Every structure is written in structure tokens, then in C-alpha cells.
């Protein structure tokens, strides 16, 4: 085997490992968890007298859980090459940081 062939074989092995996607059963489990989390979100929003800080914090935590589960399992970021993940995370982090700065600049959190 030449060096080039060995490189190709090695790369195929690595990428096949990276790209093995979840089974149908796993997808269904994730969907059930997502449905439960959505139910929790709506339930929390209707708890009478819940302190505003607790309400916001718990809803944001549940939102992040749902976002991460869809991105990691359904979009396969957990299983695919890290290069794909970097492309998305750069845009996501840039958006979150940029718009948090905008909101703070306009005094959104200073009341």
C-alpha cells in the first residue's frame, strides 16, 4: 500500500466514525424529551406568583436544553466533524455576544 492509499484509508476510517448517526430509537427518545421540556416550559410560565427572576432563568435554561438537543442530535453536531460545529458556533456566539452588547447599550437590563 502506498503512503497516499494509507492516508485515504485512514481518513475514511476517521470520518466514518465521526459521521455515524443515532438510531431511529434514539431520535424518538430525543423527541419525547423535547416534548416533555416544552410542556415544562409552558407549565412554568403558568405558575402563579413565581418570582420574575426564577421564571426567566428557568425558561432560558429549558430553551438552551432544547436548542442544544436539536443541534447535537437532530443536526448531528455531536457526531459529525468538529469543523461543521465551529462554523455554526462562530455565528451563534457572535450573534449572542453582539446582540447582548446592543441590548445592554440601549439599557435593556438596566431598569
Amino acid at each position: 500500500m502506498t503512503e497516499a492509499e494509507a492516508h485515504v484509508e485512514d481518513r475514511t476510517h476517521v470520518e466514518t466514525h465521526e459521521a455515524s448517526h443515532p438510531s431511529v430509537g434514539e431520535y424518538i427518545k430525543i423527541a419525547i424529551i423535547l416534548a416533555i421540556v416544552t410542556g415544562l416550559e409552558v407549565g412554568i410560565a403558568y405558575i402563579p406568583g413565581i418570582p420574575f427572576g426564577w421564571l426567566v432563568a428557568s425558561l432560558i435554561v429549558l430553551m438552551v436544553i432544547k436548542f442544544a438537543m436539536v443541534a447535537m442530535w437532530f443536526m448531528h453536531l455531536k457526531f459529525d466533524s468538529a469543523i461543521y460545529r465551529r462554523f455554526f458556533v462562530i455565528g451563534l456566539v457572535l450573534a449572542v455576544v453582539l446582540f447582548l452588547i446592543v441590548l445592554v447599550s440601549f439599557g435593556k437590563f438596566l431598569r
Partner: protein
Amino acid sequence: MATSDAHLGSADHPATATGLDNRKLAMWAFLGSECLFFGALISTFLLYRERVPEGGVRPEDVYDIPFTSVSSFVLLMSSLTMVLALAAIQRGDHRQLRIWLVATAGLGMVFIAGQIFEFTAFIEHGFTMRSSVSGSAFFVLTGFHGAHVTVGILMLLVMAMFSAAGRLTQEHTMRIEMLGLYWHFVDIVWVVIFTLVYLIP
């Protein structure tokens, strides 16, 4: 399970230096840029949600949270049917592929129908695009999201037709995977909108 990530060259895509499919890489770059697009619209709404003239209708006055929760659930479940479509083409099961693609498009249509119903109810209550800055920000944000869902539905139906015509083989798995990425992204954007725009008062 079959894979679609190793790209050392195929009939559908030439070999690449990274060993990754350039189309998928471009899709991820596009989705990264879409984060900034929706980030701008969401933060605009958060800034202006209280900009309502005295005595005017505020978004909170017209929201129907139980109804929107059902819409959100429908869109979330469409992500499940989308991954089932991908799993079907990876197995080479084209009948199941078509069933799940059409199911995903159907759930997307239910979501859009819900959005049209919701918009109509809001307008009847006096919360419109022109009633306040808050209204403008709300309708631009949710309208752009709805437009993304509509584009996704059209692409799903086109893929289902290609499959029915025998023009979508197992070699074209990447096309379904990319369509799936777009669809899931539209779903996660709604996850954020639902929490920040609807649930947090």
C-alpha cells in the same frame, strides 16, 4: 447506520481537501450567518416590545399561549419526522423517505396555518404591523420565520416529488441531510422565539 459524511469523491460530489462535503460546510456557514440575521430581529423585538402608544394593544394582551404552545409542539415534532426521512434514505427505503418528507411538510403547513390564524386574531384585536413599533418588530420577526418555514416546505415537497420520480437515489443522501439541517435550524430559531417573545413577559 449508513453514513454521509466521508467525501473522498463520488458521483454526486468531487473529493475535497478536508475530506468533508463542501455543500454541507457551506450550509453550516449559511446557518451561522442566519444566527446573526435572526439575532438582529429578536433583539429588535426585545428592545421595542414595550414601545406601544398609550392605550394601545401590547403583544402580551393578544398572545394565546396554549395555542402557540401547540404550534411549537407541531414544529418540534416535524424535526423528528425530518430525521426519520434522513434515516430512511440512508437505509435506501424510498417509500418511507417520501412518507416522512410529506409528513414533515404537512406539519410545517399546520404550523404556518396556525401562524396565519394567530396573525388574523392579533389584527382583529388591534395589534398590527402599523399599530406600534412593538407590532412592527413582532410581525417582521415572526413573519421572516414563517417565510423560512414556507421555503422549507417547498423544498420538502420538491424532494418528495424527485423521490417519486426516481431522481433521488441513496447517492443523494447529502441533499436530504442539508434540507434537514435547514429545517432543524428553523425549528431551533422557533425554540428561541417561543421562549423570548411569547413566554417571558
